[in-house]
């Protein structure tokens, strides 16, 4: 128990250092661009935590981040890098949207599970394609998921511009590419009124996080999945069908992203519209790494990056520094976190580092 706490604290410390290193690096870019980093970071980090709006919106963003982050953690656990989150979110969203529109009269308690299942399935199939190509044809999954992202994006646009477009958009002649509004029986309630968007989908996300934890560490299925990821040769030796579990891991991973898209539709926008995936597929990678590839660790990580994302938007509005900055900072965080593994995994450095900390406390 005490060991676990030390481990967690150590992780938090390393992650904090990684984050600070990323911010420092980012400030070099800002200085080159002639922007005062303090102004930027103050707007990005302090603003969201000083208003109800900021906190609510951070939670709103943390929901898809959590789902995608869990999905990416599952893929990582089987040594697959799923950067197809964007496509999986979009297709999950559009499928869930179509499903919701198709079942207007069905009571909520039945409708919502059906819609989530549809989103999960479609996202899962999209992820599963990359998994299948990796397992059967040894196609590098980073490349296949990137290509599938571009394909999914076009399919998504095609669907919301064409077959699924809101009939009133045509009637009014405005032609905004988006679907009709979801029926009331299919959407999540807002949690606090006063116009904040935080919705009850967050409970679904938390439940799924806990379920995935149980799945990975308490079931024979999870045992196999982790075994395949840790050492496929040994898993094969133990009688586990490696290919099957690689594909299943990607199905689960894509399915989680599909749920993320679903929740965005029935929780936030109540329509399927352009820009819905909001790069969550990429931010989810950072969230997964910050959550140490653990479904429970992903929960706080997703909130943290939810704050950062809304912070970036507020920064753009308040001090006119482009919110794209947050993408580069996330990139730097990834670089810093994967670099810190040298420190974490090598007992020599770890000891030195811990010793150094003890002295300074």
């Amino acid at each position, binding site marked *: 128990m005490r060991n676990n706490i030390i481990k967690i604290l150590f992780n938090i410390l390393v992650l904090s250092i990684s984050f600070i290193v990323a911010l420092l690096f980012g400030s070099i870019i800002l200085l080159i*661009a*002639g922007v005062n980093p303090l102004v930027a970071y103050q707007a990005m980090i302090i603003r969201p935590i000083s208003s109800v709006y900021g906190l609510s919106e951070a939670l709103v963003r943390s929901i898809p981040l959590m789902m995608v982050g869990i999905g990416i953690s599952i893929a990582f656990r089987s040594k697959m890098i799923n950067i197809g989150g964007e496509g999986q979110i979009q297709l999950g969203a559009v499928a869930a949207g179509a499903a919701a529109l198709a079942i207007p009269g069905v009571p909520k308690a039945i409708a919502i599970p059906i819609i989530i299942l549809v989103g999960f399935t479609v996202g899962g199939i999209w992820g599963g394609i990359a998994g299948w190509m990796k397992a059967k044809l040894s196609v590098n999954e*980073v490349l*296949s998921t990137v290509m599938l992202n571009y394909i999914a994006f076009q399919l998504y646009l*095609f669907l919301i511009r064409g077959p699924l477009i809101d009939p009133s958009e045509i009637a009014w002649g405005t032609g905004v590419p988006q679907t009709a509004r979801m029926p009331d029986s299919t959407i999540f309630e807002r949690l606090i009124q006063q116009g904040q968007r935080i919705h009850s989908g967050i409970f679904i996300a938390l439940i799924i996080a806990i379920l995935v934890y149980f799945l990975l560490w308490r079931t024979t299925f999870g045992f196999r999945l982790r075994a395949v990821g840790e050492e496929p040769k040994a898993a094969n030796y133990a009688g586990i069908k490696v290919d099957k579990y690689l594909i299943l891991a990607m199905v689960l991973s894509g399915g989680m992203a599909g749920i993320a898209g679903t929740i965005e539709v029935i929780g936030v926008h109540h329509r399927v519209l352009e820009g819905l995936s909001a790069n969550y597929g990429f931010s989810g990678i950072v969230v997964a790494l910050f959550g140490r590839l653990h479904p429970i660790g992903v929960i706080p990580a997703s909130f943290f990056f939810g704050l950062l994302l809304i912070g970036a938007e507020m920064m753009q509005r308040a001090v006119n520094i*482009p919110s794209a900055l947050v993408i580069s900072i996330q990139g730097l965080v990834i670089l810093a976190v*994967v670099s810190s593994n040298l420190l974490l995994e090598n007992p020599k450095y770890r000891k030195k580092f811990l010793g150094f900390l003890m002295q300074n406390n």
Partner: protein
Amino acid sequence: MAINEILNLILRILTVAIAVSAPYLFAAIGEMFSQKSGVLNLGVEGIMMLGAFVAFYFAWAYESILLGIILAVFVGALMGLLMSFVSVTLKAKQGISGIGLYMFGWGVAGTLFRLFIGGVEDIAGLPNLHLGFLSELPILGKLLFSHNILVYLAFLLVPISWYVLYKTSWGLKVRAVGSTPRAADTMGTNVNKIRYQCVILGSMLAALGGAYLSVAQANMFANDLVAGRGFIAVALVYFGRWKPFGILKGAMLFSIANGFQRWYQISGSTFPYEVTVIFPYLLIIIVLALSHEKFAEPTALTVPYDREFKG
């Protein structure tokens, strides 16, 4: 269609294919060096984005395409330095660190673009060279001898990189380091130094490929200018079996197929626009699925080298 029209069409498609394959050649040959030395750099896309932005910005603001290209290549070198520091010295997992580099390049290019340019601007672009009587030749003149200088450089890069890789001692070291680093080390090769050199060279070429897109092809910059070309370049390395001429073949085939697709799109087909845009990506997926051969990959790809590792 008359024979004449068909020939004309083929000529047009081939001419365009030669020009549009240049950025793929730069980026893919650069990535080939990186992978041959054992480092999988998945950040090519981000480097290309940044290269495209830097080249365009200086070409636009200072009206010097040359300055733009030089600075883009320099920024590419810095990105390569960052990638090699993280992947070679700090031994980070290369698949993920490449994604980090991609997002970094993407974010920086996006931020600076909004800060410094902000909207749609265009430039004259790199002019096509007129090579005297060569350019006047019927058919061949248009097909081969009326491109801009970077196109020639890209195609020249293919035999040069083949020679460097297979006929010089540096190339020999690159091949050894990517396959059996420990053996190379025992023969006095500085494994990490070679890897740094290859990753930085590869990133410079990727940035050049990006610069080509903004100052020689599109003559403008937009956030989605690169549109996956960096990842496609990585895929072409697989398709080309880590060989310069294989990559050339892949880049040409891909560009020609893509050219036909565009012609088909323009020629008034009833296919939805989105479906035709999917084509190149679908093509790459198919290519990846078909081009797998287990023993062609550098055996130490993605494996950091640690001399004192007891394994």
